[in-house]
Each structure stands twice: as structure tokens, then as C-alpha cells.
């Protein structure tokens, strides 16, 4: 069974600085998808970024980028120029269309606080 682990329950960063959130996963599959979702205090689940395992290039979305290390099964999220609005719970998620039927398997989450 696939598992996702986020080893940092809480992190904090000063506004305008850079922070990296860690995520590791376990799978024997070769083709899968990885996601980062953000859950602010409103508790809405917002897609931040997605990575296809077959792509070697790391995904980037504005201030958000990932470091995808397939061999190490690592998928970290880097947030540059942190803003107060980035304060939220961040969930890493794994999906394998073939074996998991498309369902997302989430990590435990990392609560990020951006301080002014």
C-alpha cells in the first residue's frame, strides 16, 4: 500500500523569506502523480502544484516550486517570498490511477505560519 509521510508537523517562516516543506512517499509503481494542497483557516482545499512522475522537470507555479527526487521518493515544496496569505496547513498527496483508483492518499500535513 502506498503511504505518504510529512515529518514536519509545524513550521514557521518570516514574511518574504523562503521555506521548504518535506514529503516522502512509498510506492512500487513507476507511474503516479504527486500534489501539494493548501488548507487555509477557511478549510478549503486548494491545489497548489502537481507533478507527474514521468516528468523529470520539477513543476513550478509562480512562487511555488517542487524538488522531485523519484529515486529517493521525495517531493518537497519550496515557497519563495513567503506572504502572510501563505499561512495554512499544507498536505502532500499521492495518486496512482492504476492501483489507487484515482483516490488521493494524503500525508499528515504541515502547518505553516508566516510571521510579519
Amino acid at each position: 500500500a502506498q503511504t505518504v509521510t510529512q515529518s514536519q508537523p509545524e513550521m514557521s517562516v518570516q514574511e518574504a523569506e523562503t521555506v521548504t516543506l518535506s514529503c516522502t512517499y512509498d510506492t512500487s509503481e513507476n507511474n503516479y502523480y504527486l500534489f501539494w494542497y493548501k488548507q487555509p483557516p477557511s478549510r478549503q482545499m486548494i491545489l497548489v502544484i502537481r507533478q507527474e512522475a514521468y516528468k523529470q522537470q520539477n513543476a513550478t507555479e509562480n512562487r511555488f516550486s517542487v524538488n522531485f527526487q523519484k529515486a529517493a521518493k521525495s517531493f518537497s515544496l519550496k515557497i519563495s517570498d513567503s506572504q502572510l496569505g501563505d499561512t495554512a496547513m499544507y498536505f502532500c498527496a499521492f495518486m496512482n490511477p492504476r492501483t489507487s483508483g484515482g483516490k488521493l492518499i494524503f500525508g499528515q500535513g504541515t502547518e505553516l505560519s508566516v510571521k510579519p
Partner: protein
Amino acid sequence: AAGVIQSPRHLIKEKRETATLKCYPIPRHDTVYWYQQGPGQDPQFLISFYEKMQSDKGSIPDRFSAQQFSDYHSELNMSSLELGDSALYFCASSLVSQETQYFGPGTRLLVL
């Protein structure tokens, strides 16, 4: 752009009562997923539908059932509610060919 719609947004029920949660996916999305998020927990998959057929089932209690209708909206029916069913229930939708799931705002269920 249209998003996933869930209703109601908040629901308060007594133990042993029944609740029905509704989900309206993004137009043209063919797949619907239901997740349950307990306090301080990550979302847990309950059930999914593709083209109105159940496609996968997770840790969904037998007291819960769900279906997807001809207009692609989905309903999660919960009977004999227990205190432990208090949670945030998310619906997400996707195009099966695109793999990315978009979440609705959730329904907060409180069982007293």
C-alpha cells in the same frame, strides 16, 4: 471558473439521525470523490464514482451510502449518525483523463 458546489455547508444532527450531503461537480467533470476529514486529521477517501458507476471504495462505514445521478451530481447518505461522524466532508471532481482533483468547500457535520 465554475467550482465544485456542496450543500449544505453546515449541518447539525442528533445521534441516530440521518443526513444527506450533496455535491455538484465542475461542469463536464466525469468523476466525483468523497473524503472525510476529522479534526486535526488529513482527508480520508470514502468513495468515488466515474460516469455514474462506483469506481472505488475506501473506509466508508456500512451506514453510509452514495450515488451519482444522471446529471453527475452526487449524494452521500449517512444513517444512524454517531458522534464520531462529526467531521468535514469534502467532495472533489475531476476529468478522469486529467487526474487533478478540485475540491468543494466542504460540509461541516456536527453530530450531537
